[in-house]
Protein backbone atom coordinates (compact mmCIF):
# COMPACT_ATOMS: atom_id res chain seq x y z
CA UNK A 1 0.00 0.00 0.00
CA UNK A 2 1.42 3.34 -1.04
CA UNK A 3 1.80 6.24 1.35
CA UNK A 4 1.87 9.58 -0.42
CA UNK A 5 3.10 12.89 0.87
CA UNK A 6 0.40 15.37 -0.03
CA UNK A 7 2.15 18.76 -0.28
CA UNK A 8 -0.79 20.36 1.53
CA UNK A 9 -1.76 17.78 4.16
CA UNK A 10 1.24 15.55 4.78
CA UNK A 11 1.65 11.78 4.47
CA UNK A 12 -1.54 9.81 3.96
CA UNK A 13 -2.61 6.35 2.78
CA UNK A 14 -3.09 5.46 -0.84
CA UNK A 15 -6.84 5.10 -0.27
CA UNK A 16 -7.20 8.88 0.16
CA UNK A 17 -5.76 9.60 -3.28
CA UNK A 18 -6.58 9.08 -6.92
CA UNK A 19 -3.92 8.65 -9.58
CA UNK A 20 -4.66 10.74 -12.67
CA UNK A 21 -2.00 9.29 -14.95
CA UNK A 22 0.72 11.11 -16.86
CA UNK A 23 1.80 14.53 -15.63
CA UNK A 24 2.95 17.38 -17.91
CA UNK A 25 0.73 16.37 -20.84
CA UNK A 26 0.33 19.31 -23.23
CA UNK A 27 -3.17 19.75 -24.59
CA UNK A 28 -2.86 20.57 -28.28
CA UNK A 29 -4.97 23.19 -30.02
CA UNK A 30 -7.91 22.47 -32.30
CA UNK A 31 -5.94 22.68 -35.53
CA UNK A 32 -3.65 19.68 -35.04
CA UNK A 33 -3.80 16.52 -37.17
CA UNK A 34 -5.82 13.48 -36.20
CA UNK A 35 -2.54 11.69 -35.46
CA UNK A 36 -1.32 14.38 -33.07
CA UNK A 37 -4.71 14.52 -31.42
CA UNK A 38 -4.83 10.73 -31.00
CA UNK A 39 -1.33 10.75 -29.54
CA UNK A 40 -2.52 13.28 -26.94
CA UNK A 41 -5.73 11.41 -26.25
CA UNK A 42 -4.56 7.82 -26.05
CA UNK A 43 -0.81 7.25 -26.12
CA UNK A 44 1.45 6.98 -23.11
CA UNK A 45 5.15 6.51 -22.53
CA UNK A 46 4.16 4.03 -19.81
CA UNK A 47 7.74 3.59 -18.63
CA UNK A 48 9.07 0.81 -16.48
CA UNK A 49 10.88 2.83 -13.84
CA UNK A 50 10.67 6.57 -13.24
CA UNK A 51 7.24 7.98 -14.04
CA UNK A 52 5.99 11.53 -13.62
CA UNK A 53 2.32 11.41 -12.80
CA UNK A 54 -0.39 13.48 -11.22
CA UNK A 55 -2.35 12.56 -8.15
CA UNK A 56 -5.29 14.14 -6.36
CA UNK A 57 -5.90 14.06 -2.63
CA UNK A 58 -9.58 13.35 -3.23
CA UNK A 59 -10.49 12.37 0.33
CA UNK A 60 -8.49 15.22 1.79
CA UNK A 61 -7.81 18.68 0.48
CA UNK A 62 -8.95 17.87 -3.05
CA UNK A 63 -5.79 19.31 -4.55
CA UNK A 64 -3.89 17.93 -7.51
CA UNK A 65 -0.12 17.63 -7.41
CA UNK A 66 2.69 15.87 -9.23
CA UNK A 67 4.62 12.80 -8.15
CA UNK A 68 7.86 11.27 -9.43
CA UNK A 69 7.42 7.56 -8.76
CA UNK A 70 9.10 4.35 -9.83
CA UNK A 71 6.58 2.01 -11.44
CA UNK A 72 8.74 -1.05 -10.82
CA UNK A 73 9.65 -0.55 -7.17
CA UNK A 74 6.81 1.87 -6.28
CA UNK A 75 9.36 4.14 -4.62
CA UNK A 76 8.21 7.73 -4.47
CA UNK A 77 11.11 10.00 -5.33
CA UNK A 78 9.54 13.43 -5.24
CA UNK A 79 6.29 15.30 -4.81
CA UNK A 80 5.85 18.75 -6.34
CA UNK A 81 3.12 21.26 -7.08
CA UNK A 82 0.86 21.26 -10.09
CA UNK A 83 2.30 23.63 -12.68
CA UNK A 84 5.79 23.19 -11.34
CA UNK A 85 8.50 21.53 -13.43
CA UNK A 86 9.81 18.18 -12.25
CA UNK A 87 12.97 18.36 -10.13
CA UNK A 88 16.01 18.39 -12.44
CA UNK A 89 17.16 14.86 -11.73
CA UNK A 90 13.77 13.32 -12.47
CA UNK A 91 13.16 15.00 -15.82
Amino acid at each position, binding site marked *: *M*LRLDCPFCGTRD*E*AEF*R*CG*GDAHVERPGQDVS*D*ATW*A*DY*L*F*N*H*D*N*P*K*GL*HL*ERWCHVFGCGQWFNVA*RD*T*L*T*HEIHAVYYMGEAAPERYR
Partner: protein
Amino acid sequence: MKGYSAFSLIRNALQGHRHWQPLWRNPEPKRSYDVVIIGAGGHGLATAYYLASKHGIRNVAVLEKGYLGGGNSGRNTQVTRSNYFWPQSAAFFDHSLKLYEGLGLDLNFNIMFSQRGVLTVAHSQHEIEMMRRWTNALQINRVDSELLTPAEIRQIEPLINLHSRFPVVGGYIQRRAGISRHDAVVWGFARAASALGVDIIQQCEVTGLDITDGAVTGVQTNRGDIDAGKVCIAVAGNTSMLAAMAGFRVPIVSMALQAMVSEPVKPCLNTMLGSTTIHMYVSQSDRGEIVLGGGADAYPSYAQRGGIPIVEENVAAVLELLPAFSSLRLMRQWAGINDITPDTTPIMGSTPVRNLYISGGWGTGGYKAIPAGGDTMAYTIANDEPHALIRDFGLDRFERGALIDEGAASGVAH
Protein backbone atom coordinates in the same frame (compact mmCIF):
# COMPACT_ATOMS: atom_id res chain seq x y z
CA MET B 1 6.47 -35.95 -30.00
CA LYS B 2 5.38 -39.12 -28.24
CA GLY B 3 1.67 -39.10 -27.58
CA TYR B 4 0.13 -39.00 -24.15
CA SER B 5 -2.63 -41.44 -23.33
CA ALA B 6 -3.87 -43.64 -20.52
CA PHE B 7 -1.84 -46.47 -22.07
CA SER B 8 1.36 -44.46 -22.16
CA LEU B 9 0.77 -43.44 -18.55
CA ILE B 10 0.36 -47.06 -17.44
CA ARG B 11 3.33 -48.21 -19.53
CA ASN B 12 5.52 -45.50 -18.03
CA ALA B 13 4.25 -46.18 -14.54
CA LEU B 14 5.47 -49.77 -14.92
CA GLN B 15 8.86 -48.40 -15.94
CA GLY B 16 9.03 -46.05 -12.97
CA HIS B 17 8.28 -43.02 -15.15
CA ARG B 18 11.91 -43.04 -16.32
CA HIS B 19 11.20 -42.76 -20.03
CA TRP B 20 9.08 -39.65 -20.41
CA GLN B 21 10.42 -37.24 -23.02
CA PRO B 22 11.13 -33.58 -22.31
CA LEU B 23 8.12 -31.37 -22.99
CA TRP B 24 10.26 -29.10 -25.14
CA ARG B 25 13.83 -28.74 -26.33
CA ASN B 26 16.31 -26.20 -24.95
CA PRO B 27 18.04 -25.04 -28.13
CA GLU B 28 20.80 -22.48 -28.44
CA PRO B 29 19.62 -19.47 -30.44
CA LYS B 30 20.46 -19.60 -34.15
CA ARG B 31 21.82 -16.56 -35.99
CA SER B 32 18.72 -16.10 -38.03
CA TYR B 33 15.03 -16.97 -38.11
CA ASP B 34 12.18 -16.33 -40.50
CA VAL B 35 10.06 -15.15 -37.60
CA VAL B 36 11.12 -14.11 -34.11
CA ILE B 37 8.38 -13.86 -31.51
CA ILE B 38 9.22 -11.89 -28.39
CA GLY B 39 7.57 -13.34 -25.33
CA ALA B 40 6.94 -17.04 -24.56
CA GLY B 41 3.60 -16.57 -22.91
CA GLY B 42 0.42 -18.14 -24.18
CA HIS B 43 0.06 -15.75 -27.10
CA GLY B 44 3.68 -15.96 -28.27
CA LEU B 45 3.73 -19.74 -28.09
CA ALA B 46 0.31 -20.17 -29.70
CA THR B 47 1.36 -17.86 -32.54
CA ALA B 48 4.49 -19.95 -33.07
CA TYR B 49 2.48 -23.18 -32.96
CA TYR B 50 -0.02 -22.03 -35.58
CA LEU B 51 2.74 -20.55 -37.77
CA ALA B 52 4.36 -23.97 -37.81
CA SER B 53 1.23 -26.13 -37.95
CA LYS B 54 -1.01 -24.11 -40.26
CA HIS B 55 1.37 -22.06 -42.36
CA GLY B 56 4.41 -24.31 -42.58
CA ILE B 57 6.69 -21.61 -41.18
CA ARG B 58 8.90 -23.59 -38.81
CA ASN B 59 12.08 -21.54 -38.71
CA VAL B 60 10.67 -19.66 -35.77
CA ALA B 61 12.12 -18.59 -32.43
CA VAL B 62 10.18 -17.59 -29.35
CA LEU B 63 12.39 -15.51 -27.05
CA GLU B 64 11.61 -15.32 -23.35
CA LYS B 65 13.49 -13.18 -20.86
CA GLY B 66 12.49 -15.38 -17.91
CA TYR B 67 10.90 -18.81 -17.98
CA LEU B 68 8.10 -19.64 -20.38
CA GLY B 69 4.62 -18.93 -19.13
CA GLY B 70 5.96 -16.84 -16.27
CA GLY B 71 3.96 -13.70 -17.00
CA ASN B 72 0.23 -13.25 -17.14
CA SER B 73 -0.27 -16.69 -18.70
CA GLY B 74 0.59 -18.15 -15.33
CA ARG B 75 -1.04 -15.50 -13.16
CA ASN B 76 -4.58 -15.20 -14.44
CA THR B 77 -7.80 -16.64 -13.06
CA GLN B 78 -8.18 -19.11 -15.95
CA VAL B 79 -11.51 -17.89 -17.27
CA THR B 80 -12.56 -18.55 -20.84
CA ARG B 81 -15.78 -17.02 -22.11
CA SER B 82 -16.99 -15.34 -25.27
CA ASN B 83 -19.84 -13.19 -23.96
CA TYR B 84 -18.67 -10.03 -25.70
CA PHE B 85 -21.03 -7.34 -26.88
CA TRP B 86 -19.73 -6.08 -30.20
CA PRO B 87 -19.87 -8.47 -33.15
CA GLN B 88 -16.13 -8.24 -33.84
CA SER B 89 -15.28 -9.13 -30.25
CA ALA B 90 -17.86 -11.87 -30.02
CA ALA B 91 -16.65 -13.48 -33.25
CA PHE B 92 -13.04 -13.37 -32.14
CA PHE B 93 -13.56 -14.65 -28.60
CA ASP B 94 -16.04 -17.30 -29.68
CA HIS B 95 -13.47 -18.56 -32.17
CA SER B 96 -11.13 -18.79 -29.20
CA LEU B 97 -13.69 -20.64 -27.09
CA LYS B 98 -14.23 -23.16 -29.87
CA LEU B 99 -10.49 -23.70 -30.18
CA TYR B 100 -10.31 -24.20 -26.41
CA GLU B 101 -13.00 -26.88 -26.67
CA GLY B 102 -10.74 -28.98 -28.87
CA LEU B 103 -7.39 -27.87 -27.56
CA GLY B 104 -6.68 -30.81 -25.26
CA LEU B 105 -6.99 -33.26 -28.12
CA ASP B 106 -5.36 -30.94 -30.65
CA LEU B 107 -2.26 -30.44 -28.50
CA ASN B 108 -2.39 -33.95 -26.99
CA PHE B 109 -2.15 -32.26 -23.61
CA ASN B 110 -5.04 -32.02 -21.18
CA ILE B 111 -5.68 -28.36 -20.52
CA MET B 112 -8.56 -29.28 -18.20
CA PHE B 113 -11.14 -27.05 -19.82
CA SER B 114 -14.17 -27.23 -17.58
CA GLN B 115 -17.22 -25.72 -19.27
CA ARG B 116 -19.03 -25.11 -16.02
CA GLY B 117 -20.61 -21.81 -17.06
CA VAL B 118 -19.98 -18.18 -16.29
CA LEU B 119 -22.80 -16.67 -14.27
CA THR B 120 -23.20 -12.91 -13.97
CA VAL B 121 -25.72 -11.44 -11.58
CA ALA B 122 -27.56 -8.11 -11.73
CA HIS B 123 -28.63 -5.95 -8.82
CA SER B 124 -30.95 -3.30 -10.27
CA GLN B 125 -33.56 -2.82 -12.96
CA HIS B 126 -31.06 -0.72 -14.89
CA GLU B 127 -28.58 -3.58 -14.80
CA ILE B 128 -31.29 -6.00 -15.92
CA GLU B 129 -31.98 -3.76 -18.91
CA MET B 130 -28.27 -3.70 -19.74
CA MET B 131 -28.13 -7.46 -19.35
CA ARG B 132 -31.05 -7.86 -21.72
CA ARG B 133 -29.26 -5.64 -24.22
CA TRP B 134 -26.14 -7.73 -23.73
CA THR B 135 -27.67 -11.21 -23.95
CA ASN B 136 -29.69 -10.27 -27.03
CA ALA B 137 -26.47 -9.12 -28.68
CA LEU B 138 -24.86 -12.43 -27.77
CA GLN B 139 -27.74 -14.45 -29.17
CA ILE B 140 -27.73 -12.48 -32.40
CA ASN B 141 -23.96 -13.05 -32.58
CA ARG B 142 -24.63 -16.78 -32.04
CA VAL B 143 -23.00 -16.91 -28.62
CA ASP B 144 -25.00 -18.87 -26.06
CA SER B 145 -26.56 -16.97 -23.19
CA GLU B 146 -29.62 -17.30 -20.99
CA LEU B 147 -31.28 -14.77 -18.71
CA LEU B 148 -31.99 -16.18 -15.26
CA THR B 149 -34.37 -15.38 -12.43
CA PRO B 150 -33.09 -15.14 -8.85
CA ALA B 151 -34.63 -18.55 -8.11
CA GLU B 152 -32.80 -20.09 -11.04
CA ILE B 153 -29.57 -18.48 -9.88
CA ARG B 154 -30.03 -19.92 -6.43
CA GLN B 155 -30.55 -23.34 -7.94
CA ILE B 156 -27.22 -23.10 -9.76
CA GLU B 157 -25.30 -21.58 -6.84
CA PRO B 158 -26.98 -22.59 -3.56
CA LEU B 159 -24.49 -20.58 -1.50
CA ILE B 160 -25.43 -17.24 -3.03
CA ASN B 161 -27.00 -14.59 -0.83
CA LEU B 162 -29.80 -13.10 -2.92
CA HIS B 163 -30.51 -10.48 -0.26
CA SER B 164 -27.11 -8.86 -0.15
CA ARG B 165 -26.62 -5.12 0.24
CA PHE B 166 -27.59 -4.91 -3.44
CA PRO B 167 -30.21 -7.63 -3.84
CA VAL B 168 -29.80 -10.04 -6.72
CA VAL B 169 -32.68 -9.35 -9.09
CA GLY B 170 -31.56 -11.47 -12.01
CA GLY B 171 -28.62 -12.61 -14.04
CA TYR B 172 -27.46 -14.58 -17.02
CA ILE B 173 -25.23 -17.48 -17.78
CA GLN B 174 -23.00 -18.48 -20.66
CA ARG B 175 -22.92 -22.23 -20.19
CA ARG B 176 -20.14 -22.97 -22.67
CA ALA B 177 -17.79 -20.69 -20.78
CA GLY B 178 -15.59 -22.01 -18.02
CA ILE B 179 -12.15 -22.36 -16.58
CA SER B 180 -9.10 -24.35 -17.58
CA ARG B 181 -5.57 -24.92 -16.29
CA HIS B 182 -3.42 -21.97 -17.34
CA ASP B 183 -0.01 -23.65 -17.06
CA ALA B 184 -1.25 -26.59 -19.10
CA VAL B 185 -2.30 -24.30 -21.95
CA VAL B 186 1.15 -22.71 -22.05
CA TRP B 187 3.00 -26.00 -21.72
CA GLY B 188 0.75 -27.70 -24.25
CA PHE B 189 1.46 -25.04 -26.86
CA ALA B 190 5.18 -25.01 -26.01
CA ARG B 191 5.44 -28.77 -26.32
CA ALA B 192 3.55 -28.90 -29.61
CA ALA B 193 5.45 -25.94 -31.09
CA SER B 194 8.80 -27.32 -30.04
CA ALA B 195 7.95 -30.67 -31.62
CA LEU B 196 7.25 -28.87 -34.91
CA GLY B 197 10.72 -27.31 -34.85
CA VAL B 198 10.06 -23.99 -33.14
CA ASP B 199 12.99 -22.89 -30.96
CA ILE B 200 11.84 -21.74 -27.55
CA ILE B 201 14.71 -19.83 -25.99
CA GLN B 202 14.31 -19.00 -22.31
CA GLN B 203 16.48 -16.61 -20.31
CA CYS B 204 16.88 -14.58 -23.50
CA GLU B 205 16.00 -10.92 -23.08
CA VAL B 206 15.52 -8.62 -26.04
CA THR B 207 17.52 -5.43 -25.48
CA GLY B 208 16.99 -3.72 -28.83
CA LEU B 209 15.47 -3.98 -32.28
CA ASP B 210 17.42 -3.61 -35.54
CA ILE B 211 15.45 -1.31 -37.80
CA THR B 212 16.64 -0.34 -41.28
CA ASP B 213 14.69 1.91 -43.63
CA GLY B 214 11.59 1.60 -41.53
CA ALA B 215 11.67 -2.17 -41.42
CA VAL B 216 12.76 -4.50 -38.66
CA THR B 217 15.60 -6.85 -39.54
CA GLY B 218 16.51 -8.45 -36.25
CA VAL B 219 16.68 -8.29 -32.51
CA GLN B 220 19.49 -7.75 -30.04
CA THR B 221 19.45 -9.98 -27.00
CA ASN B 222 21.56 -10.81 -23.97
CA ARG B 223 22.45 -13.98 -25.87
CA GLY B 224 23.57 -12.25 -29.05
CA ASP B 225 22.02 -10.62 -32.08
CA ILE B 226 19.47 -12.57 -34.07
CA ASP B 227 18.39 -11.73 -37.62
CA ALA B 228 14.71 -11.98 -38.29
CA GLY B 229 12.53 -11.71 -41.37
CA LYS B 230 9.59 -10.73 -39.21
CA VAL B 231 9.23 -9.92 -35.55
CA CYS B 232 6.14 -10.14 -33.36
CA ILE B 233 5.83 -8.44 -29.98
CA ALA B 234 3.74 -10.54 -27.57
CA VAL B 235 4.81 -9.26 -24.18
CA ALA B 236 1.59 -8.07 -22.51
CA GLY B 237 2.46 -5.56 -19.78
CA ASN B 238 5.86 -4.83 -21.32
CA THR B 239 4.44 -3.84 -24.74
CA SER B 240 5.18 -0.14 -24.19
CA MET B 241 8.84 -0.89 -23.55
CA LEU B 242 9.22 -2.88 -26.77
CA ALA B 243 7.29 -0.24 -28.72
CA ALA B 244 9.69 2.36 -27.35
CA MET B 245 12.60 0.29 -28.68
CA ALA B 246 10.90 0.39 -32.07
CA GLY B 247 10.37 4.14 -31.79
CA PHE B 248 6.61 4.50 -31.40
CA ARG B 249 4.14 4.99 -28.57
CA VAL B 250 1.10 2.84 -27.86
CA PRO B 251 -2.19 3.56 -26.09
CA ILE B 252 -1.40 1.27 -23.18
CA VAL B 253 -1.07 1.70 -19.45
CA SER B 254 0.44 -1.14 -17.44
CA MET B 255 -1.32 -1.92 -14.21
CA ALA B 256 -1.08 -4.65 -11.59
CA LEU B 257 -4.22 -6.77 -11.71
CA GLN B 258 -4.63 -8.83 -8.59
CA ALA B 259 -5.88 -12.32 -7.92
CA MET B 260 -5.96 -14.41 -4.78
CA VAL B 261 -6.79 -17.90 -3.59
CA SER B 262 -8.13 -19.45 -0.42
CA GLU B 263 -7.18 -22.71 1.19
CA PRO B 264 -8.69 -25.70 -0.65
CA VAL B 265 -12.11 -26.98 0.37
CA LYS B 266 -14.49 -29.58 -1.00
CA PRO B 267 -16.63 -28.52 -4.00
CA CYS B 268 -19.01 -25.71 -3.05
CA LEU B 269 -19.08 -23.38 -6.06
CA ASN B 270 -20.33 -24.63 -9.40
CA THR B 271 -19.73 -21.80 -11.87
CA MET B 272 -17.54 -18.80 -12.35
CA LEU B 273 -19.71 -16.28 -10.56
CA GLY B 274 -19.38 -12.57 -11.16
CA SER B 275 -21.02 -9.25 -10.46
CA THR B 276 -20.20 -5.74 -11.62
CA THR B 277 -22.10 -3.80 -8.97
CA ILE B 278 -20.54 -5.91 -6.24
CA HIS B 279 -17.20 -5.91 -7.93
CA MET B 280 -16.03 -9.50 -7.86
CA TYR B 281 -15.67 -12.70 -9.77
CA VAL B 282 -14.93 -16.00 -8.17
CA SER B 283 -14.56 -19.65 -9.07
CA GLN B 284 -13.30 -22.83 -7.47
CA SER B 285 -10.26 -24.59 -8.85
CA ASP B 286 -10.20 -28.32 -9.34
CA ARG B 287 -7.90 -28.52 -6.31
CA GLY B 288 -10.62 -26.86 -4.26
CA GLU B 289 -9.18 -23.39 -3.76
CA ILE B 290 -11.55 -20.47 -4.14
CA VAL B 291 -10.00 -18.21 -6.76
CA LEU B 292 -10.88 -14.55 -6.41
CA GLY B 293 -10.38 -12.24 -9.35
CA GLY B 294 -9.30 -8.92 -8.04
CA GLY B 295 -9.31 -5.41 -9.33
CA ALA B 296 -6.21 -3.58 -10.44
CA ASP B 297 -4.24 -1.31 -8.16
CA ALA B 298 -5.28 2.12 -9.38
CA TYR B 299 -1.94 3.39 -10.65
CA PRO B 300 0.61 2.37 -13.29
CA SER B 301 2.77 -0.50 -12.10
CA TYR B 302 5.29 -3.00 -13.36
CA ALA B 303 5.68 -4.61 -9.94
CA GLN B 304 4.13 -8.05 -10.12
CA ARG B 305 2.56 -7.75 -6.70
CA GLY B 306 -0.51 -6.13 -5.30
CA GLY B 307 -1.39 -3.83 -2.45
CA ILE B 308 -3.83 -4.36 0.38
CA PRO B 309 -6.81 -2.02 -0.42
CA ILE B 310 -7.86 -4.13 -3.42
CA VAL B 311 -7.71 -7.30 -1.34
CA GLU B 312 -10.01 -5.78 1.26
CA GLU B 313 -12.45 -4.60 -1.38
CA ASN B 314 -12.55 -7.87 -3.27
CA VAL B 315 -12.89 -10.04 -0.21
CA ALA B 316 -15.67 -7.83 1.15
CA ALA B 317 -17.44 -8.06 -2.20
CA VAL B 318 -17.17 -11.85 -2.31
CA LEU B 319 -18.52 -12.18 1.23
CA GLU B 320 -21.42 -9.90 0.35
CA LEU B 321 -22.61 -12.44 -2.22
CA LEU B 322 -21.16 -15.59 -0.62
CA PRO B 323 -21.22 -15.05 3.16
CA ALA B 324 -20.43 -18.72 3.78
CA PHE B 325 -16.86 -18.00 2.70
CA SER B 326 -16.41 -15.79 5.73
CA SER B 327 -14.53 -18.46 7.67
CA LEU B 328 -12.42 -19.60 4.73
CA ARG B 329 -8.85 -18.40 4.83
CA LEU B 330 -7.08 -16.49 2.11
CA MET B 331 -3.78 -18.17 1.34
CA ARG B 332 -2.05 -16.09 -1.26
CA GLN B 333 -2.38 -12.90 -3.30
CA TRP B 334 -0.44 -12.07 -6.44
CA ALA B 335 -0.60 -9.79 -9.46
CA GLY B 336 0.13 -9.71 -13.15
CA ILE B 337 0.94 -6.67 -15.23
CA ASN B 338 -1.95 -5.88 -17.52
CA ASP B 339 -1.61 -3.86 -20.69
CA ILE B 340 -4.77 -1.82 -20.54
CA THR B 341 -6.09 -0.08 -23.67
CA PRO B 342 -8.59 2.80 -23.66
CA ASP B 343 -11.36 0.62 -25.11
CA THR B 344 -10.31 -2.66 -23.43
CA THR B 345 -9.99 -4.26 -26.87
CA PRO B 346 -6.64 -5.77 -27.88
CA ILE B 347 -4.20 -4.27 -30.34
CA MET B 348 -3.30 -6.77 -33.05
CA GLY B 349 -1.63 -6.48 -36.42
CA SER B 350 0.95 -4.31 -38.10
CA THR B 351 2.84 -1.39 -36.61
CA PRO B 352 4.47 1.76 -38.01
CA VAL B 353 7.60 -0.38 -38.48
CA ARG B 354 7.44 -2.78 -41.46
CA ASN B 355 7.61 -6.50 -40.65
CA LEU B 356 7.06 -5.72 -36.98
CA TYR B 357 3.77 -7.01 -35.60
CA ILE B 358 2.08 -6.51 -32.29
CA SER B 359 -0.21 -8.73 -30.27
CA GLY B 360 -0.90 -6.78 -27.12
CA GLY B 361 -3.29 -4.64 -25.18
CA TRP B 362 -4.87 -7.78 -23.81
CA GLY B 363 -5.67 -6.10 -20.54
CA THR B 364 -7.63 -8.40 -18.31
CA GLY B 365 -8.77 -10.64 -21.16
CA GLY B 366 -5.65 -12.23 -22.60
CA TYR B 367 -5.92 -15.76 -21.31
CA LYS B 368 -9.26 -16.53 -22.91
CA ALA B 369 -7.91 -15.27 -26.24
CA ILE B 370 -4.78 -17.40 -26.42
CA PRO B 371 -5.73 -19.88 -29.15
CA ALA B 372 -7.55 -17.34 -31.31
CA GLY B 373 -4.83 -14.76 -30.75
CA GLY B 374 -2.21 -17.26 -31.87
CA ASP B 375 -4.28 -18.46 -34.81
CA THR B 376 -5.07 -15.00 -36.17
CA MET B 377 -1.61 -13.54 -35.51
CA ALA B 378 0.02 -16.49 -37.28
CA TYR B 379 -2.20 -15.80 -40.30
CA THR B 380 -1.45 -12.10 -40.13
CA ILE B 381 2.31 -12.65 -39.99
CA ALA B 382 2.33 -15.35 -42.65
CA ASN B 383 0.23 -13.35 -45.11
CA ASP B 384 1.20 -9.83 -44.07
CA GLU B 385 -2.46 -8.88 -43.90
CA PRO B 386 -4.76 -8.94 -40.92
CA HIS B 387 -6.88 -12.02 -40.41
CA ALA B 388 -10.56 -11.23 -40.97
CA LEU B 389 -11.35 -11.69 -37.28
CA ILE B 390 -8.89 -9.00 -36.16
CA ARG B 391 -9.27 -6.46 -38.95
CA ASP B 392 -10.79 -3.93 -36.57
CA PHE B 393 -8.24 -4.52 -33.78
CA GLY B 394 -5.39 -2.62 -35.46
CA LEU B 395 -3.31 0.09 -33.84
CA ASP B 396 -4.66 2.57 -36.42
CA ARG B 397 -8.14 2.54 -34.90
CA PHE B 398 -7.09 5.08 -32.29
CA GLU B 399 -6.04 7.72 -34.80
CA ARG B 400 -9.36 7.25 -36.59
CA GLY B 401 -11.29 7.29 -33.35
CA ALA B 402 -12.85 3.94 -34.25
CA LEU B 403 -12.68 2.37 -30.82
CA ILE B 404 -14.40 -0.90 -29.97
CA ASP B 405 -15.49 -0.08 -26.47
CA GLU B 406 -16.52 -3.26 -24.70
CA GLY B 407 -17.31 -1.21 -21.62
CA ALA B 408 -20.00 0.57 -23.63
CA ALA B 409 -23.00 -1.56 -22.89
CA SER B 410 -21.39 -2.97 -19.82
CA GLY B 411 -23.06 -5.37 -17.51
CA VAL B 412 -20.17 -7.78 -17.47
CA ALA B 413 -16.82 -7.43 -15.85
CA HIS B 414 -14.35 -7.09 -18.65
